[in-house]
């Protein structure tokens, strides 16, 4: 088991080296994304909402919005950092096959990709949180709980997407497809910009199955004390965990099988 863990860290080390090549866009995206959202939606829409109805959920719009944006950034960053390398590793450059020719196993490669994605998510989320704090959207004391819960959600989702990407035979628009038909609807219909309860009931299910909604619920509870029953919080944590566990188990098996057949 100890040897297995070491193998995963070697793969993660490689992934970080590869990410380092993209450091400028990772940093620019990590900073630019929150600044743009906060300036436009947070301040612009916020002014409209706050003067119109005195905020949402009893707090200013910016405070309501912040935990959702943070969770969305974690989930999107996590997805990027598992789907691109997995498609490249199996299809474009076939690097995973080169790795599997060394003493590494398929499971270690899957774990390593996920581990590096986790570090990227921690980084992205921490930067995002800092911008939120500078805009006054979160309390300074919320750093640990908010970054932790967002990273947790991002990582669980990344594990699931790792398993999905490992099954893609032919890229054929998979990356664009998941962005437009999974990430975007998730972003729009998870109670990110308005409470989920304001959506017609027929659309609310999107939120219930969405990891972003569960992460947002937890985030709002931790950030400004949105009322949340303990069982609801536990359910959200468990739902995300289930996603992550299924993802890891399927991804490990799928990686090993695909690299040895």
């Amino acid at each position: 088991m100890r040897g297995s863990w070491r193998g995963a860290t070697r793969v993660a080390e490689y992934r970080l080296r590869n990410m380092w090549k993209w450091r400028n866009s990772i940093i620019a995206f990590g900073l630019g994304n929150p600044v743009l959202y906060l300036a436009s939606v947070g301040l612009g829409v916020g002014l409209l909402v706050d003067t119109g109805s005195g905020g949402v959920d009893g707090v200013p719009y910016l405070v309501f919005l912040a935990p959702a944006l943070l969770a969305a950034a974690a989930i999107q960053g996590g997805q990027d950092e598992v789907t691109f390398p997995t498609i490249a590793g199996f299809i474009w450059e076939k690097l995973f096959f080169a790795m599997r020719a060394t003493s590494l196993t398929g499971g270690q490669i899957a774990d390593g990709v996920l581990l590096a994605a986790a570090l990227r998510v921690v980084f992205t989320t921490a930067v995002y949180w800092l911008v939120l704090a500078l805009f006054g959207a979160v309390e300074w004391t919320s750093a640990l709980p908010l970054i932790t819960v967002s990273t947790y959600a991002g990582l669980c989702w990344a594990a699931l997407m790792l398993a999905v990407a490992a099954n893609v035979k032919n890229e054929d628009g998979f990356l664009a497809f998941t962005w437009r038909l999974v990430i975007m609807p998730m972003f729009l219909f998870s109670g990110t910009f308005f409470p989920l309860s304001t959506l017609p009931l027929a659309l609310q299910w999107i939120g219930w199955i969405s990891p972003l909604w569960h992460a947002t619920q937890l985030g709002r509870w931790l950030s400004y004390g949105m009322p949340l029953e303990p069982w609801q919080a536990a359910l959200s944590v468990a739902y995300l965990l289930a996603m992550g566990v299924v993802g890891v188990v399927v991804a490990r098996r799928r990686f090993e099988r695909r690299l040895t057949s």
Partner: protein
Amino acid sequence: MIRAQGLTKRYDDFVAVDGIDFAVERGESFGILGPNGAGKSTTMRMLGATLQRTSGDLMILGRDPAHEGPTIRAHLGVVPQQDNLDTELTVTENLYTYGRYFGLPKSYLMPRIDELLAFAQLEDKRSAKVDALSGGMKRRLTIARGLVNEPSILLLDEPTTGLDPQARHVLWDRLFRLKETGVTLVITTHYMDEAEQLCERLVVMDGGRIVAEGAPAALIREHSTREVVEVRFGSDRNAEVAAQLGDIGERLEVLPDRILIYTDAGEADLQRIVARGFMPVTSLVRRASLEDVFLRLTGRTLADE
């Protein structure tokens, strides 16, 4: 180093490798020659402990790859048919990250990378991105990468396929040097000249089976005459002319584009053909090669596939 008995790989109802037996000794350079689809790459992946066999016995470095894959792979170098290098990293970084997959420390890797760059004649390119390398350079880098862990056995799958003649010769020279240092080489190829150049001993595979085994020169002696006369009379006349040359040489093969006459006296036999009034469009007297062995054993040329 390698011992295979009844080694078989079956996919549903297709048998890719059909019960082959062979052994490779330490320091040997061993070839697997055959056309595309003969089962060479499948065999190679089983030797590389990246593909599980369906049945039979296989021992690599005294271990069974079904149970000790990672341990075996730690002592193997693998050069796949396709260069799967990281095109976003530099030449040096490719070698370094690959070494790290084995868990090799930086203090070992830095001097080792210098040696490998010298060996692969890529010292000027150490900081170049892989994208900027020629096909021959990428191949040499892939071979250098396979050597990073000082493997006991280097497995090369079609090492020069797709390279121009000059790049092939450079590569052969490098592999020859490697052989001199005592590394055990296993090479698959569908180029008979490559097999003759690099392999001390080889098996000829066709349809998942081994059809012949031995040293290249011995195989040629056993299955062919010393010389071959190749004459072309145009594709529509070859068969007609061949019918009247039956008594020349030991044996004769008619291919769509030429006639091959197997003989121990090529020049004299060519003179006899001309003396009978047949003027070939082109003619060539050459030494017999593994191509002739393959043709003899399977009734097909290696280029047929």
